[in-house]
């Protein structure tokens, strides 16, 4: 046979397989409902976990950017010699972007601004209680530990404050969420593979006669297997479709209503639904059809020994 003939033959076989897959799915729609529901339940939970992970990543990133400062509080009334020494010492460290002197007066101004409406409380102060300080900006707050330790020992330095602790805790927390989320999803994927493989098993058993006849007439294993895998994948995709709709519209609704009620602080850290739609669609579609195909393969392996 020449190649064109073979390709045409393969194409016809493929068309038959697809057709039978759809037929089989339709005939099996009652049981299929269980598969579709379980897959979409898994994917919905996956969606929630995904949104939480992405939002926490957002928070971590944002915090890292915001807290790239180290505040060095100074003793009162240091001479310019001592100040220069500190500046020189700090600038020697790699990763230091800038160092800025903030006098106690400037510090009070900033505080007043931050306190805004409550700033009148500061009016009664007779004397500025705030210290002079240096604001050091660094590349990566994670790597600033050496610098902090060195600066602490310098003359005239009273206290050093930075937010490594906060970020460390946040990272650990994000890690827990990630691991926990993946574990939950793993278990659920396993469960739904099991459910779909049972569904397909029922089709296989109910079609045993047909399969048997197909074997005697000389159908290849792929030809027999094909429709079942198509059926599984279709169930998976349906489940994905359902869960994409629920997760996307549900989340969007939540996001919008939070925005309206001026929980801006909160939504600021949440990922924008529009940004993740494509990702969710791709991830859900892949996982859904993967679960379907895997489930079919598993059930066929045991019940289709030729």
């Amino acid at each position, binding site marked *: 046979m020449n190649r064109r003939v073979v390709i045409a033959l393969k194409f016809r076989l493929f068309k038959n397989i697809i057709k039978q897959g759809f037929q089989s799915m339709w005939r099996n729609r009652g049981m299929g409902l269980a598969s579709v529901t379980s897959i979409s339940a898994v994917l919905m939970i996956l969606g929630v976990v995904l949104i939480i992970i992405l939002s926490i990543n957002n928070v971590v990133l944002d915090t890292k950017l915001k807290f790239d400062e180290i505040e060095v509080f100074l003793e009162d009334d240091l001479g310019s010699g001592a100040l220069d020494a500190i500046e020189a010492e700090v600038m020697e460290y790699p990763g230091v972007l800038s160092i800025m002197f903030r006098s106690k007066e400037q510090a009070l101004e900033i505080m007043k601004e931050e306190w805004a409406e409550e700033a009148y409380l500061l009016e009664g102060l007779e004397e500025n209680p705030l210290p002079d300080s240096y604001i050091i900006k660094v590349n990566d707050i994670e790597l600033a530990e050496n610098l902090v330790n060195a600066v602490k020992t310098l003359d005239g330095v009273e206290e050093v404050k930075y937010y490594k602790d906060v970020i460390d805790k946040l990272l650990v927390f994000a890690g827990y969420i990630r691991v926990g989320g993946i574990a939950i999803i793993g278990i659920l994927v396993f469960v739904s593979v099991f459910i779909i493989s049972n569904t397909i098993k029922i089709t296989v058993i109910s079609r045993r006669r047909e399969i048997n006849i197909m074997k*005697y*007439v000389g159908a290849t*294993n792929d030809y027999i297997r094909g429709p079942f895998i198509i059926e599984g994948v279709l169930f998976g995709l349906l489940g994905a479709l359902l869960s994409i709709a629920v997760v996307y519209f549900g989340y969007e609704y939540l996001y919008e209503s939070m925005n309206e009620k001026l929980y801006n602080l909160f939504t600021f850290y949440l990922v924008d639904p529009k940004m993740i739609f494509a990702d969710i669609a791709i991830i859900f579609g892949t996982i859904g059809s993967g679960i379907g195909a895997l489930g079919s393969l598993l059930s066929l392996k045991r019940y289709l020994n030729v």
Partner: protein
Amino acid sequence: MIKFVNISKEYKNGVTALYDINIEINKGEFVFLVGSSGAGKSTLIKILLKEEGISRGRLYLNGMDITRVPNRRIPYIRRQVGVVFQDFRLLPNKTVYENVAFAMEIVGARPRDIRRRVPLILSMVDLSKKANSFPDQLSGGEQQRVSIARAIINNPPVLIADEPTGNLDPETAWEIMRVLTDINNRGTTVVMATHARDIVNLMKKRVVALEDGRLIRDEQKGGYSVEIPTI
């Protein structure tokens, strides 16, 4: 066409179903396979269909050594061997036409060829008028003719019939025998396992007899048993 050379078959549970079988069947022959239940007829047919493996010996089909073949090649061997069963094995939710066309779809035949060939075969087994009926609307004989049509639609060189008349009354059984003879006359090798004593005796074809897994008789124009039938 088919050659069994020193074939033995032991099942995993230790039962020996065939001992050292030697049979050579030529192209275009019509062979009856006789023997009581448990004599090894079914095992012999299963071996031919590659449903069961072979413990010892060699098996040739159409000049090819098919003693041991990888699983993925088995379907292609089965396309060389049409098969008809006692219980017809038709798909109940497909019409006569669809049941026959099904065998062609499986091998990826062109729709045009399917539309041309199925009516031809159906008329050959005299079922043109029943093309759109479902199996449960047919008599036993008609159902068996559908299954014969399905077995030969892809033009296999060999047709195996495992007690094709077992479920049929004598008159209908002869109807099936006429169809099988017809197919044989067109050049297809036919191997038929049967218990039907009178059919074997009257057909005067080659008879291969098995008993307890051994070949006890192989004669041209033979009868069902060694005694000359007294008519």
